[in-house]
């Protein structure tokens, strides 16, 4: 590993990010510019930005590591992330865009006219974003540690500082530019190495029996049906509940373009996931010795120098490092924008200055959490974020868009039941006191029972607190569902 090359790769990404961010800054001066890019972003560019923000450390580094560790089970994560956009497209993309709300709490407030529901949604949005930022910092810490040998905290603090500065300086408009650029950077930084590794692998003879590299027991024939179904449900519904994903749709000019943008996003992230999966398959063949929970997430960083000796391998590693940092920076900054928007409006009273203060504050908490938690697998810790979003926010969003009968009390109950059940399941599961295999699976992958439970609670309490039909809700539904002229 060549530290000089690695450091220059990271420096180049940061420099490019700052330049692109500054280019955006010159035309971003109002609150509208800061928060939603004035709703003028074109579908292709917006789709690049959404994809750039969505593809995080989990799929850039984590997926190959998980394929190496557990086999084809791992492929369900990217399939679920991708299908999550399908669910978002089918149920909420156009209506949420038409609602005119900027953040999820804005939407909930406009729909239910309830400050309490708004506050609870804000708390959940901030919690979900923090949970999601932590693995990005862990990924940065791991990369810096593996490739340069510096202590892990250097990477986490470095990315935190970069993100805080970029977001506070430019807001959403420059973030849109930065993230559109980061999608193409990430695709290149994974695509070129995959091509070279495939070419190189033709020249490296392997005498290993393919049934050892791709054993039946790690293949599709040996998957746990309940766990797979529950995981796919969490990922399918989780995407629409992620705070930084929804805020992006407000930058589309109308509902129809929000839909077209989503289709382009699906194509873009699919292309990336196929590359990332290929990296996992290559890893199984040439890096079987790294198949250990402690080292698996670093396999993408270590693979090139194994297959391509000398400067070529080092250059390709540097490219991968550049892409990985783009992943950490873009996902973390998208999340910080989304919580900074919520916090600045809720707590600090809105305005550009409040947004900047909120952005700085939004970085510090996850950074502290990064220091006190041990890194677990990147992909599974991001899976947890989707689970929380799917259980708490998604049922309320879905019912809010499609069911007139939803009431504020129903929504609050649903969000509390959903998030409370996830917390309970995660805590009990991590204590390791459950011996019953069925119960253990239900706690480890709880979406299959928590999502229906939260939805049911929302509907029941809404029924009990039903009010007379109001024209306010009728008008709101007309706005959500009627196409623009």
């Amino acid at each position, binding site marked *: 590993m060549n530290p000089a090359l690695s450091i220059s790769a990271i420096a180049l990404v940061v420099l490019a990010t700052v330049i692109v961010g500054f280019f955006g800054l010159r035309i971003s001066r109002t609150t509208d510019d800061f928060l939603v890019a004035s709703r003028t972003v074109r579908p292709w560019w917006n789709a690049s930005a959404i994809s750039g923000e969505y593809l995080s450390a989990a799929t850039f580094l984590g997926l190959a590591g998980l394929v190496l560790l557990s086999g084809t089970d791992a*492929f369900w994560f990217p399939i679920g992330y991708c299908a999550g956009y399908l669910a978002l497209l089918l149920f909420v993309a156009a209506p949420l865009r038409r609602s005119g709300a900027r953040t999820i709490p804005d939407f909930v407030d406009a729909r239910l006219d309830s400050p309490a529901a708004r506050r609870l949604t804000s708390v959940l949005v901030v919690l979900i974003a923090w949970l999601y930022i932590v693995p990005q910092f862990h990924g940065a810490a791991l990369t810096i540690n593996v490739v340069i040998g510096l202590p892990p905290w250097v990477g986490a603090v470095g990315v935190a500082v970069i993100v805080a500065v970029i977001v506070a300086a430019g807001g959403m408009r420059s973030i849109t530019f930065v993230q559109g650029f980061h999608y193409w950077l990430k695709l290149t930084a994974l695509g070129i190495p995959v091509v070279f590794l495939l070419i190189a692998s033709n020249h490296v003879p392997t005498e290993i029996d393919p049934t050892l590299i791709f054993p039946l027991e790690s293949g599709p024939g040996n998957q746990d049906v309940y766990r797979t179904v529950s995981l796919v449900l969490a990922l399918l519904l989780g995407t629409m509940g992620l705070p930084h994903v929804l805020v992006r749709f407000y930058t589309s000019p109308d509902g129809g373009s929000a839909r*077209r943008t989503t289709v382009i996003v699906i194509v873009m992230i699919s292309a990336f996931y*196929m590359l990332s*999966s290929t990296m996992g398959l290559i890893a199984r063949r040439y890096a079987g010795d790294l198949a250990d929970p402690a080292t698996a997430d670093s396999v993408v960083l270590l693979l090139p120098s194994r297959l391509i000796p000398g400067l070529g391998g080092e250059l390709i590693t540097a490219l991968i490092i550049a892409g990985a940092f783009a992943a950490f920076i873009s996902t973390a900054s998208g999340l910080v924008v989304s919580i900074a928007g919520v916090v600045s409006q809720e707590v600090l009273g809105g305005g550009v200055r409040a947004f900047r203060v909120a952005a700085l504050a939004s970085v510090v908490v996850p950074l502290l959490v990064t220091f006190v938690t041990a890194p677990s697998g990147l992909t599974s810790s991001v899976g947890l974020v989707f689970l929380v979003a799917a259980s708490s926010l998604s049922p309320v969003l879905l019912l809010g868009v499609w069911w007139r009968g939803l009431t504020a009390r129903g929504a609050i109950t649903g969000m509390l039941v959903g998030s409370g059940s996830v917390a309970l399941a995660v805590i009990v599961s991590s204590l390791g006191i459950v011996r019953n295999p069925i119960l253990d699976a239900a706690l480890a992958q709880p979406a299959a029972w928590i999502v229906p439970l939260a939805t049911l609670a929302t509907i029941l309490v809404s029924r009990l607190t039903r009010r007379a039909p109001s024209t306010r809700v009728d008008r709101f539904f007309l706005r959500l569902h009627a196409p623009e002229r």
Partner: protein
Amino acid sequence: MRSRRWASGVTEPSSDNRVPGPLPRKRVTAPRRQVQAAPARASDPGIPDASAVYIRTLMRAQLRLAITLVVAFLLTLAVCSVAIALIPALHVEMVFGVPWSWALQAYGMYPLVVIFAVIYVRAAGRNERRYRSLERE
């Protein structure tokens, strides 16, 4: 757009030509609540009956479409996974050094997502065009 030119300090010729030099900068702040809910008053005339019927019809059509497609998608996904898991030849035959079952699991599902997404966008657009032509009448 206008505020952008203002804020970047570009001098705009004012209509009455009395203000020399750059215009004063204006701080633009966000109102706390972005989405103003329509006020519900007793005298609220509400939405015209015909419009209300059209929008309900559109909503029902869109929801039916979305549910049909998500169910069809999940069924397709399930059938494909079961097929990949249960056809023995897929575990034995290799493609580029990888068993077919692994390759299909790794790459095969994404085209399904894209196909369903495209079908939805077309059908949803068709529903909205029908709604627009009803509204115009």
